[in-house]
């Protein structure tokens, strides 16, 4: 009887190990995000992180349809926004709910959402780089819950093949670089036409035109395909 139980336990353990070996590798994207070097806007911004952002996960499938990599990018977005937003606004308040309109001290509520994530692995693209694209829908509401603006931004990260790092580490680097690239769009916050007119109307702010920057993405022939 005892030996039967031992065999059962061994079989369960073996099956468990086999299943674990067949499962997708998990990549929890982590990166270093600096404080933006910009002039702060004199606003108190409420920010609400929806569960879909907090728990955003992307699964990369193999050509046979098996899950290969599970890329978790929710937590790294919280790390990114908690570093970047206080560099852009005088005050930032994290809200527990998007309906927390009772928070009188905020001037507006910012709700970032991920719409899509794409990964390009050199094993499939035959290119010499790992690439990641993230598409966002950014939303700004007044503290009373009125819509101010919805705008779509995309960010891109690319890291070349090479060195002795693992595929998971390269995916992490591409994801973290895409996160850093998001800073490029975030600093143009006040130049979104609806936000610009809201700032001028509500706070009598004069918003300077955006600095002349690169007209294209700078990555020839590598546009995201969302």
């Amino acid at each position, binding site marked *: 009887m005892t030996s039967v139980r031992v065999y059962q336990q061994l079989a369960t353990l073996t099956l468990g190990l086999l299943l674990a070996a067949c499962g997708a590798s998990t990549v929890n994207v982590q990166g270093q995000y*600096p404080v933006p070097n910009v*002039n702060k806007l004199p606003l108190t911004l409420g920010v609400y992180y929806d569960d879909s952002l907090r728990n955003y996960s992307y699964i990369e499938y193999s050509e046979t349809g098996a899950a290969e990599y599970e890329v978790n990018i929710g937590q790294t977005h919280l790390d990114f926004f908690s570093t970047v937003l206080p560099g852009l606004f005088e005050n930032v308040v994290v809200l527990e709910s998007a309906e927390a309109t009772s928070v009188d001290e905020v001037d507006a509520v910012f709700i970032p959402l991920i719409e899509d994530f794409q990964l390009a692995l050199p094993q499939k693209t035959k290119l010499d780089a790992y690439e990641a694209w993230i598409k966002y829908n950014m939303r700004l509401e007044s503290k009373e819950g009125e819509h101010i603006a919805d705008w779509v931004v995309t960010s891109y990260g*690319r890291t070349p093949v090479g060195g002795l790092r693992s595929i998971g580490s390269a995916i992490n680097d591409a994801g973290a*670089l895409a996160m*850093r690239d998001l800073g*490029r769009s*975030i600093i143009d916050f006040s130049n979104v036409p609806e936000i610009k007119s809201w700032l001028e109307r509500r706070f009598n702010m004069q918003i300077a035109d955006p600095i002349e*920057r*690169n007209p294209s993405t*700078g990555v020839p022939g590598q546009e995201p395909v969302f």
Partner: protein
Amino acid sequence: MNYLFRTNRVYILLLAALTSCGTTTTIDEFRQGETSLSTEDSVVLLGRRGDSNISADFVECVGNRLASSESAIAIVPEQEFVDAMYPWFEPLNAPQKASQLDGLLNERAVSEKMAELDVRYMIWLSGETERVGSNGTLTCALSPGGAGCFGGGYREYSAEYEARVWDVESRSLVGSLNADGAGTTYVAAVVVPIILPARVEPITCDRLAAQLESFLVGSQ
């Protein structure tokens, strides 16, 4: 004892000569403006990423050579600069032309940080080292009686780099330098493999840094 020391020294010199003789480099310089560096001025080297696969190691190598050169040029490390200026020098956001510095430096936070770091010249590096050819076979075997390799071959490497020098003060391109290198790594094995590496990338880095040093301080 003295004889042994002298013999070892000869071998080391011979090996050093063999490892560097397989590499050739060509440097072209195009100057568009005067350059001068005061003791307070610093230089930042940045890799142009996105359209080139330049490695951070190459950028660091050129920076280290300039810092340890006779002129002891003050170098702001690339990552430190990019983080301090975030997100203005991220790969897709960085200025592509020196004339774009004008608008960028009108942003108070950017000009203050640039002044704080005393950056006088910004050097944009692009290019890469590639393996362009190889031939030969090398077979190694392991048995209870011992291990050994037999055969030989070579690998050809090519390096092409460009350095564009921007003057932050005049907000203009003051010159560009091109460094091309080529070399072959040889491997020959009769039991023990002997490798003569081409060292294309470090040698191209040395030569480019030497030329950059003379470019930056040469016209004073």
